[in-house]
């Protein structure tokens, strides 16, 4: 059973990690709590649905193509809804909630509340230590690792990464050093939304596409980010697997209470916060950057 739990943890945690890393990135850099993050993930899922089911395009093509329009929408949203009120964090929070709701209502209007599906990139499953795992889930796990690596390379090995880290550390000093702080924030927003869209593209075949599909991942993603430490990418990644583990534990140990898996995961988050209010890696990450 332990093996089953561990494998379920890795699979469930990967999707949360993919979402949480992008969310954490934009918060760490621009202090933007982007509630619409998972709405962009939902938007990507709808793009893939439309491309594959309505236009008859190849799933791979749609998945790659979905990232572009969604990222553009994300950037436009930033430019027109978030940037003008960026200094007021509370207002940004409310604006992104409104943005998410608007995206939800538009999807509801265009596609109704019907539950839709998109094809997997890879069909079938593989036995791993006696546990059946769909190839699409293995792909999600692999992508989560690659994305983390890519984000790490972007932040630590590129000039853009240096600018992002500098801005995250001290906006005013970064400005004085000649960096366009607003532009860096916008690029970070693009990367963050791109990550959300990419997650949508990878996870959509595992999910049910509907206008409300952004809500549950949002709660779990927020829990992951708070647990890992707001703004800590490493913390988000580890937090995602901790909550994934909690969920798997509930399903295997309390089958009658499987519906409680989300609540138990959130309770663990609260417990950790009571002991360590800054989250698991909040301070460590501050020091790193």
């Amino acid at each position, binding site marked *: 059973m332990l093996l089953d739990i561990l494998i379920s943890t890795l699979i469930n945690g990967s999707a949360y990690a993919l979402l949480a890393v992008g969310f954490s990135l934009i918060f760490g850099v621009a202090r933007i709590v982007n509630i619409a993050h998972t709405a962009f993930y939902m938007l990507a899922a709808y793009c893939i649905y439309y491309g594959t089911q309505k236009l008859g395009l190849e799933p791979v093509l749609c998945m790659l193509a979905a990232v572009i329009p969604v990222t553009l929408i994300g950037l436009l949203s930033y430019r027109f809804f978030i940037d003008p009120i960026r200094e007021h964090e509370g207002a940004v929070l409310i604006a992104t909630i409104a943005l998410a709701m608007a995206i939800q209502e538009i999807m509801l209007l265009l596609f109704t509340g019907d539950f839709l599906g998109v094809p997997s990139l890879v069909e079938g499953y593989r036995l791993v230590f006696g546990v059946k795992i769909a190839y699409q889930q293995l792909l999600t796990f692999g992508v989560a690792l690659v994305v983390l690596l890519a984000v790490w390379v972007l932040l630590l090995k590129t000039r853009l990464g240096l600018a992002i880290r500098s801005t995250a550390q001290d906006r005013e000093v970064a400005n004085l050093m000649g960096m366009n702080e607003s532009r860096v924030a916008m690029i970070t927003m693009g990367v963050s939304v791109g990550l959300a869209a990419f997650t949508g593209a990878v996870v959509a075949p595992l*999910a049910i596409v509907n206008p409300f599909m952004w809500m549950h*991942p949002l709660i779990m993603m927020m829990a992951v980010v708070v647990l890992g430490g707001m703004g800590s990418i490493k913390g988000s990644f580890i937090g995602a697997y901790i909550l994934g583990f909690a969920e798997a534990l509930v399903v295997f140990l309390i*089958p009658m209470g499987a*519906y409680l898996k989300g609540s138990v995961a959130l309770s663990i988050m609260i417990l950790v916060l009571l002991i360590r209010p800054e989250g698991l890696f909040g301070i460590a990450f501050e020091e790193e950057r």
Partner: protein
Amino acid sequence: MKRSMNAFGVFLMAGILTALGIPAQAADVIKIGVIGPMNFMQGKGHWDGATLAAEEINAKGGIQVGQKKMKIQLVKADSNEFLSITDATNAMERLMTQDKVDFVVGGFRTEAVFAMQDIAMDYKKLFLGCGAAHPELCEKVGKDYKRYKYWFRVTPTNSNYLVRVCLINLATVNGLLKKDLGIQKAKVAIVGEKVVWIDPMIKAIEANVPKMGMELAGVWRPSDKATDVTAELTAVQRANAQIIFTIFSASVGITFARQAGELKIPAAFVGINVEAQKDGFWAATQGKGNYAVSLATFVRDVAYNDLTLPFIEKYISRFGELPTYTAATYDAIKSTLGEAIEEAGTMDTEKLIPIIEKSERKGVASPKAKFDKNHDLFFGPGYSTGITFQWQDGKMKGWWPNGWEGVTYKGMVPYKLPPWMVEKYKK
């Protein structure tokens, strides 16, 4: 200036009156509120079934009420009950106070229907339930007839009967496993979403499985909105379950069927999966929902009587999809209500109730429909039974009742075991 102010005042009053919904010809129409989650297939079923009924009645000049013919006017109310029970109660209040409907049909999610039912009862409006299956909704009529007599359940049969059908189906599949695969004591896993109407069903199934010579492998209760159930499926497989008894009414039914198909879980399905009743299920599961089973009211090519197939064909040609059971608002308006009004010659609810209580009417959703003392839909041979179907290679196929109590509807086929299950267990 004064004249223009007066003209403005008249326009303003006219606008307010229009906004308040005071119709000029209110006396000439029968206003029926259709309440349901209109952005979802269940609500669409409510509305589309009602639309067909209203159109057919109106095409014939309306319903004969005493000396005059009255046309039907439908009022759509989006209860949004999947997401908010408050929205549902507000929608019902609006039907009562603003739209001032004469009757209401619809409702789906039990939790919301309980709340909506009380509002309709407060206003003494006839509320014909077309979606919620919880027995308590009708038991209230028996307990407090004076208050709850305005409620009738037109569809589906209550969840106790749903359990009964599911257990009959379970026995059939168990027999098949014995006969075809030599499994003498099948293990049964119950997987039911966590919502109120399922709780009594789970208890009944748990109690009956051992009595039927099978073994209970466990009970799993995922959230009704779960987007991933692979952990549950792994656990079910580890428990060596050969039969999975599903009870789903929400999106988790698609997730479960799709992931079980993707992972080729070697088990036979029985039970209820409301989302599987929909044509779009095959696409939503990307074809992985093969062998999924559910109960339904309407299945292509399966007829209760001579009214069923023409209705299904008309519905499909008009709305492009198979009607789900909530489309039995058609029967609620056309036979239950329409025929009762014509018989009574009045729209007086107090006079209609005894007529509906005694009536036995032919409809599209059952060979004949009548109500028990609690105003619940009567279940049994010759009356409402529903159909159990299975997805077989992209098509919904009815497989029960097929000889049960002498009942076989036209168009039934045998149940199929998933080939990967046969491969695993065939000796």
